[in-house]
């Protein structure tokens, strides 16, 4: 079991390092989602079943979807509306 713990945690750490150090943003988002899955497995291993469920649904699922949505937004050209400074609201 110890072997399992160690392997799990090493995978987790490698995924985390990969997520923040990849040049390709999409790749790091995928690594991030994967990391969420591994974290959920870790919660399950620690006997926190409800946490594992929330982590998969929220920590990996919704957060991952939000990140993907943002990437999609950033791949479009910057919008035409509201360019420049808005100094009237000091």
């Amino acid at each position: 079991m110890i072997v399992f713990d160690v392997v799990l945690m090493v995978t987790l750490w490698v995924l985390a390092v990969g997520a923040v150090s990849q040049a390709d943003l999409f790749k790091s988002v995928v690594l991030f989602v994967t990391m969420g899955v591994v974290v959920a497995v870790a919660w399950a291993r620690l006997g926190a079943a409800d946490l594992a469920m929330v982590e998969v649904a929220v920590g990996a699922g919704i957060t991952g979807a939000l990140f993907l949505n943002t990437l999609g937004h950033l791949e479009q050209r910057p919008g035409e509306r509201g360019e420049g400074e808005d100094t009237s609201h000091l």
Partner: protein
Amino acid sequence: MIVVAALVLGSFSAALIRIWRGPSGADRMMGAQLFGSSGAATVLVLAAMLEDWSLIDVALVFASLAAVTVVAFVERTERASMPQ
């Protein structure tokens, strides 16, 4: 049990390789999906080993994760390929 664990480990490493190597976004996404399924399998194995059968529910949520990410991914590719 050992055989099952080894199989799960194998699919884990396959998923990791796909995610890391790419080459296209879809490959990586499929890798992440495989990772999710392997995660579900791991949780099931864990459930058997720890004899904590409430973990089966967790595996169900793992499976539904795939839907969420795929929808987000497809929406993103749709949007990126839209005419500007």
